């Protein structure tokens, strides 16, 4: 029998990264995808966004195929989130569900299609933010894990760890006033916003620390100088991901 040239070409491709979490739909053949997903996590003020931005610039300048996505940024859910926060309608469950709807929208319309389409996807915050933050608000872990089980598992999850005081100071010095939910005022930990924020961030950090092993976090020290941290990050990315596959076509042919 003649081999179909197209199918044999496909077989020689490097093995696709698999999602180990069950997908919400019935299992479909494209559960595995050729793209790669890099995620940064950490508390506010841990330096993660700066580092991901620099990683993105490095890859962009090199001409790699990539897409950048941010937590809580889907236009679809924006008005509801704004209304909920302004009128303080959000409870731990609805806060969590609304963010899940936001993530589902980006996942179904951007992240999954791009991973299928062989892109490098960079995410500033991912489902672990929800696990840590909503867990700190009292949502059951089992419920949260189920809520996000449609999410593809990242190839690398960087966890930027900075001591609580450093992280809190970075945020407080740069912001005139903390917002209600941002400070975790809904938890009733303290009437003082900065103090409430501190207690809330401490709980979130505990949540992150608990996931280091179970979710294969790559822990980075958020107090290191920016350029040294960035060098570490680039080395890890280059060692764990076959970047050539996302390079411009011309470079691939060389």
């Amino acid at each position, binding site marked *: 029998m003649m081999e179909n040239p197209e199918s044999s070409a496909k077989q020689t491709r490097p093995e696709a990264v698999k999602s180990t979490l*069950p*997908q*919400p*739909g*019935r*299992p*479909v*053949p494209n*559960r595995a995808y050729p793209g790669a997903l890099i995620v940064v996590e950490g508390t506010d003020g841990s330096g993660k966004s700066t580092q991901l931005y620099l990683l993105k610039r490095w890859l962009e300048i090199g001409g790699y195929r990539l897409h950048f996505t941010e937590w809580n940024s889907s236009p*679809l*859910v924006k*008005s*509801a989130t704004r*209304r*909920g926060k302004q*009128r303080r*309608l*959000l*409870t*731990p*469950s*609805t806060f969590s*569900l*609304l963010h*899940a*709807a936001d993530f*589902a*929208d980006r*996942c*179904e*319309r951007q992240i999954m299609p791009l991973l299928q389409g062989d892109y490098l996807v960079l995410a500033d915050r991912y489902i672990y933010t929800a696990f840590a933050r909503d867990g700190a*608000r*009292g*949502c*059951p872990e*089992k*419920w949260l894990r*189920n*809520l996000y*089980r*449609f999410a593809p598992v990242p190839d690398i999850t960087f966890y930027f760890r900075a001591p609580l005081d450093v992280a809190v100071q970075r945020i407080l010095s740069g912001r005139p006033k903390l917002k209600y939910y941002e400070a975790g005022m809904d938890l009733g930990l303290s009437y003082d916003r900065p103090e409430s924020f501190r207690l809330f961030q401490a709980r979130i950090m505990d949540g992150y620390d608990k996931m280091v092993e179970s979710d294969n976090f790559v822990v980075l020290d958020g107090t290191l100088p920016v350029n040294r941290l960035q060098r570490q990050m680039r080395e890890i990315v280059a060692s764990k991901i076959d970047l050539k596959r996302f390079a411009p076509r011309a470079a691939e042919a060389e």
Partner: protein
Amino acid sequence: MPETEKEKLQDKERAGAAVEHPEQVPGRLPVPSDDESSRNFFGEPLVGFDPHEITGTLIVIEGMDGSGRSTQISLLQEWLESEGFAVQTSGLRRSTLVGRDIDELLAKNAVTRLTLALMYCTDFFDQLEHRIVPALKSGTIVLADRYIFTLIARSVVRGINRDYLSGLYAMALRPHLTFWLNVRPETAFGREFRKAQAISYWEAGRDMSLSHDLYWSFIRYQTMIKREFEAFAKRHDFLELDGEAPVSTVNKLLRQRIAEQLGIRATKYTPSSALAHLWR
């Protein structure tokens, strides 16, 4: 699971066979057991909630579009109020938080199935926490025009995993009574068409590409939903009523069962002039 079986399953999944997970049975939501939280919830207890505070009664009326749900709820509300009970109603897309946003998403038809499912879930929990639970704590009777069963059924027929959905609604409060007004899709089609001289895109499940013919799309979609309900009915003690019977007959049966639940005598009831037009 033995290694070989695991591999077999993986092979199947790789091959893209539409295997439902072995323990995935229709109507799957945990049934109540002896433990207290399972008597009150479908799984996990709601965050920061004490079931002992509940003194009211949660009554759910389920059924497809055109099964007569809203007619019966109007009548029941009048009857219960005339009996001296405080009544509150709830229904889909009525939350302050996202009710209107869902309307907009549906109108624009610019939403994927999982996002929509999660928006409906947000809508449900916003109403549960801000309206239903406070009402139940104050001894009010809550009449729910549809509940999690409709929401789960709609997502299941669109291919979303059943276990995922029952996990999502694990924190939902278990109703005291769930009535199911069962009608044939053919009957429902006629009733719905007469209401608006049209059938809406979503009622007919047009997003599922079942048929280009509006009638057949409606029938096939509602039949799929109905099958999910049949499975729920068995597992969750639905009180099934013939939705094709006259309004007054259905209403009488509803009142009898509700009176029994509330521990009152089933009294005679005829609707006031404001609702007389419903009493066909």
